[in-house]
């Protein structure tokens, strides 16, 4: 199976461990991944507040390049990229006037947008294209005795989720069980991590992140497992600040691709395990 890969800015920056583990796992599973050539920033949530048509055009350029280069599905691991690219497909389909403007602007730069590409999340690909049974064959070092809290965050399941439930998503729960670990039951699977508010309004954003890590710890999770670079950043990076404002929690946040890679016996160095600010070493030592 072959896919195009849209990394987005975070996977090349603070979310490097996500890119490393995603590429390592897909390679080991025999899935071919090619990075979309000359991709640009998707615009994320921020740019939609400045200019609507340009936001759609930014995402549209990526989709047009994807269409030109192949007929493969595009994998967008970052939640914001996944949402924006899907939102653009839907928005351009439903609003003829918007579509006319964006298509014309892309044409002015020699690009052609038809809306043919499918934008998918790597979790969707692993669970639905590969399947849990096939994944199980690759598990050589099951993560026995480990407890994880599955954290989906907002923008993969809402509002356009095509592969999981909006209220109680379960795909990552299945993956956690597939790697031999225990999935902790907790009600905050899709509650907001604070998004960019941790940086812009810490008095509000930090509280949201704190609620999540506190509850995960209380429910006995050794680590939180997530699928979004901004969620990982908020839950992992701000624990010092949370400690000085509320209390110290100390719980690592891993990507689902990292725990899958570990269970497949891939070396920690290929999975970016050491890139966690809250170290996962102690938790993983119990394997």
């Amino acid at each position, binding site marked *: 199976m072959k896919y195009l890969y849209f990394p987005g800015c975070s996977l090349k920056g*603070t979310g*490097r461990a996500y890119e490393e583990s995603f590429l390592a796992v897909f390679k080991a599973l025999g899935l071919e991944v090619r990075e979309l050539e000359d991709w640009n920033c998707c615009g994320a949530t*921020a740019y939609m507040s400045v200019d609507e048509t340009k936001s759609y055009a930014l995402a549209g350029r990526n989709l047009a390049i994807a269409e030109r280069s192949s007929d493969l599905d595009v994998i967008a691991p970052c939640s914001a990229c996944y949402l924006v690219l899907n939102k653009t497909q839907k928005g351009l389909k439903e609003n003829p006037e918007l579509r006319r403007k964006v298509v014309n602007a892309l044409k002015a730069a020699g690009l052609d947008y038809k809306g043919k590409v499918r934008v998918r999340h790597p979790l969707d690909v692993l669970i639905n294209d590969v399947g849990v049974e096939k994944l199980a064959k690759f598990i050589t070092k099951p993560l026995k005795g480990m407890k994880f809290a599955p954290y989906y965050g907002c923008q993969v399941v*809402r509002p356009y989720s095509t592969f999981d439930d909006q209220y109680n998503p379960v795909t990552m729960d299945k993956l956690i069980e597939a790697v031999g670990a225990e999935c902790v039951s907790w009600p905050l699977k899709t*509650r*907001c991590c604070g998004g960019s508010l941790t940086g812009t309004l*810490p008095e509000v954003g930090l509280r949201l992140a704190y609620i999540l890590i506190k509850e995960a710890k209380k429910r006995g999770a050794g680590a939180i497992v997530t699928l979004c670079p901004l969620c990982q950043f908020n839950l992992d990076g*701000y624990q010092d600040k949370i400690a000085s404002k509320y209390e110290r929690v100390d719980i690592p946040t891993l990507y689902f691709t990292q725990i899958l890679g570990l269970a497949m016996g891939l070396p920690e160095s290929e999975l970016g395990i050491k890139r966690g*600010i809250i170290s996962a070493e102690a938790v993983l030592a119990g394997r």
Partner: protein
Amino acid sequence: MPLEQKVKYESECDREFAQWVVGQIGGENLRHCIQCGICSAACPLSLYMDYTPRRIINLAREGFKKEVLSSFTIWLCSSCYACRVECPKEIHITDIMYLLKRRAIEEGVYPRSFPIPVLAREFGRMIFMFGRVNETLLVTDLFLRTNWFKFLGMIGLGLNLMRTGRMSFLPDTIKRRGELRKVLDALDAEEKKEKKEALS
């Protein structure tokens, strides 16, 4: 006790603004709102807002332009879409927050040093320049523009990111910047043309 007018007369509301909201993408179902309040209940940020999402919806559709555009509410929305999936009338509340933010920026009514609109603007500027966003440079720029003191408080996080190799100081850039520029210029030209036509 001084007398104060607590409720607006209908004539004091801006009906044109209400019309405008309904005419935007995402504003279509605004008038279907039954004021049930599930948006406010689902919103993880409503307890920090000056008007809850339910109230913003009602104020917007009645034309309380000033109250809506200068509210903190629209800037607190983190785009988590919890309200959107709960709304029994399928109102695109998150998109309404976006369009209100855009209008507030356009009219310049947001709080000046409030970091959220500044972030949105700088984010856009960086995309125009490089085609991609470097998080380190964006955040540094944001704090220098809004709050020096807070920037100092971020040094610990910065060091942690450096230690774990998650920080880069060079802007990442796309190869065909001219191509992206052309797309954005074409949209600017279109907008200019539209404005001219509207005037004549």
